[in-house]
């Protein structure tokens, strides 16, 4: 039994599992699930996106943001306002939301360049509150406490996507897929390595020639853009937004998902979101205690499993591309003398 189980976890099966999960997600609505369950699935999807974004900043780069609801809000508001006032198509409005969220995060990141660790977190917290105050006070634009209503549903090629025709659900899947892919591409590159190096040891990263400030800003912008996209999708899905959705509690929920799932993992974001969004629905008797539970998650995870539920290290070997394997095989085990770097031509000669 033990053996079968551990055999099932072998890396060669991973692709199969992932494919199975994706197929299940695609065919799920065809099973005739109630709209209520679909709604929950969509909310899980939105929070998985948000967690994915925060993960780039907090999980990989080690910068804890306590004000991420601000970018979620900016994406939602910009997109909703453009769609309601200028009748822009959802996808264009979303793009605008992403851009504005990115710009605002750039401004925040540039002003807080000098801050590290806890100080940075507190500054993001303050920023989140300031953005909420702006949403509340800038009435001519944001409509203040009255919020934005009648936000059009997303439509694709003239076809309106609703909950009933499963369009919203599939849009969520596509968005989550795109965001996951982008994160995957970024993490598996020098950018991703720079992020992780900064998290592991910022000073050592500087001595690797990594322009740490620049990469931290980049992480901020990527992270905020994703939150902006999620916000825009949320606004068009829910169709009414007001400042009360984007509070400190929302930021903490995002952070709890990242920490519970496992900072610096992909799987953790989906599972973390699924657990934290679905659990208050499933365990209604705990509803009054849900914030206590969020709090407990933060405390207990930090105490006993800071890497998160799914935060184990991969035991698979490092993936060398075919090209690399061939180059190395050609070389065989010949003796290598290291020579210092002298000029461009020799730089990458093996």
């Amino acid at each position, binding site marked *: 039994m*033990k053996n079968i*189980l*551990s055999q099932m*976890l072998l890396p060669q099966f991973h692709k199969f599992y992932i494919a199975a999960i994706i197929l299940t997600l695609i065919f799920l609505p065809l099973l005739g*699930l*109630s*709209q*209520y*369950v*679909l*709604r*929950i699935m969509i*909310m899980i999807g939105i929070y998985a996106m948000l967690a994915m974004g925060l993960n780039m900043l907090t999980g990989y780069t080690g910068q804890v943001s306590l004000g991420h609801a601000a970018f979620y809000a900016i994406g939602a508001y910009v997109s909703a306002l453009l769609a309601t006032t200028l009748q822009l198509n959802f996808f264009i409005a979303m793009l605008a939301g992403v851009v504005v969220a990115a710009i605002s995060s750039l401004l925040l990141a540039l002003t807080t360049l000098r801050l590290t660790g806890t100080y940075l977190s507190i500054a993001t917290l303050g920023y989140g509150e300031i953005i909420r*105050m702006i949403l*509340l*006070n800038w*009435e001519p634009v944001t409509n*203040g*406490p*009255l*919020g934005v*209503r009648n936000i059009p549903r997303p439509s694709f090629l003239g076809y309106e996507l609703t*909950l009933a025709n499963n369009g919203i659900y599939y849009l969520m899947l596509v968005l989550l897929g795109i965001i996951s892919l982008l994160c995957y591409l970024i993490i598996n590159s020098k950018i991703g390595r720079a992020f992780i190096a900064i998290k592991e040891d910022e000073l050592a990263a500087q001595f690797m020639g990594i322009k740490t400030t620049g990469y931290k800003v980049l992480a901020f912008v990527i992270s905020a853009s994703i939150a902006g996209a999620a916000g825009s999708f949320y606004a068009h899905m*829910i*169709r*009414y*937004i*007001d400042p*009360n*959705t984007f509070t400190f509690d929302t930021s903490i929920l995002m952070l709890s998902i990242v920490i519970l799932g496992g900072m610096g993992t992909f799987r953790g974001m989906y*599972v973390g979101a*699924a*657990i934290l969004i*679905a*659990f*208050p*629905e*499933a*365990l*209604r008797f705990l*509803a*009054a205690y*849900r*914030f206590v539970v969020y709090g407990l998650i933060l405390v207990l995870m930090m105490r006993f499993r800071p890497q998160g*539920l*799914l935060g*184990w290290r991969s*035991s698979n070997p490092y993936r060398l591309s075919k090209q690399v394997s061939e180059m190395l095989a050609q070389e065989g085990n010949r003796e290598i003398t290291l020579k210092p770097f002298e000029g461009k031509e020799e730089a990458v000669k093996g």
Partner: protein
Amino acid sequence: MVKKMKKIISYLLIATLVMVSLIGCAGTAGSKAESVVKIAVAGPLTGDNSEYGIGFKNAVELMVEEWNERGGVLGKTIQVVVYDDKNSGEEAAAIAEKIVGDSDIVGVIGHFASGVSMVASPTYQENKMIEISPTASHPDYSSEGDYIFRNNSVISAEAEIGLDIAINNLGRTNIGILSIKTDWGSSTAGITKDLILANDKLNLVAQEEIIEGSDDYSAAVTKFVNAGADVIIVAGMYNTLAPFAKQYKQVNPDIALVGFSNAYSYQLIELGGEAVEGVTFPISFFSGSTDPEIQSYVQRYIEKYGSAPSALTSQAYDSAGILLQAIENAGTTDREKIKEELYRINYKGVTGDTFFNAIGDAQKTYVRATVKNGAFVKVE
């Protein structure tokens, strides 16, 4: 190996958790009983605003209990289904789906905040589910659709009476407006301001807004005092009005204060003490009324829950009554018919005579109340 086992256990644990969660979400559709009429209550039962949601629940359950004692409606037992929306739009949207998925439910009493109600109401409207919010105050709320009703005072009507209190009952004309920055507070302040500007006899000396979360009103008080206000119209709940009155009366004991029915709660007196003496407001529900119906309601409420019902709670109580009466009048649980009945109803409830106008706003009659010797008394 141990590591692997740990990993497997984590996987299994997580899989179970997710399964349980999903089953939990899906599994409540359940028993379909023919002899039951369900009405849903949706509001914040937990969190910051739980006092209001719990008030809804209490009130509706009390009303349903009374009906069931009389044999239910259409010969069927009435059952209350309670949903906690945590005062969050995200939650409310999901709950709305859940409610419309249960064909036994004929109507919803809720939600509490306008913003939350308005996230849910498109779902109700599309699925022809009747929603009566006892509290929503957003001006656009009831125009979300013909199944969407509001059993709350219409701001303009209430504001007019508030001003009339200031002029005629209190004899003041230099008016200051204090409002909380919520959809209701901002709308109320805006409407009141327009009314004052339209009236030559009145003088708007200062207008202040505050955000909930701070209890310090000294800055606003100083501004009002300097502007020479002799009456302040406070568009806030009891939890704003009471501390504001306290802080203001320390500086100027002669100030007159006008509130709105939202602030009509025994907690106002509990929190405000002497400072709220003389605070006057328009109300549609008066717990000290000599009307025997109201007296028995207040008595039953106190008996059951240990405290006197507030105005908002009483509106929830009437909302349930209105819905049940409409079912009775329609003679069926067909929601379209019940909706039609709702537009025809003239309900004599504890919050006065109520009927809905064409967009589904309740039209109410108001009385005036003031605080005297630590109790609410009617102003004649």
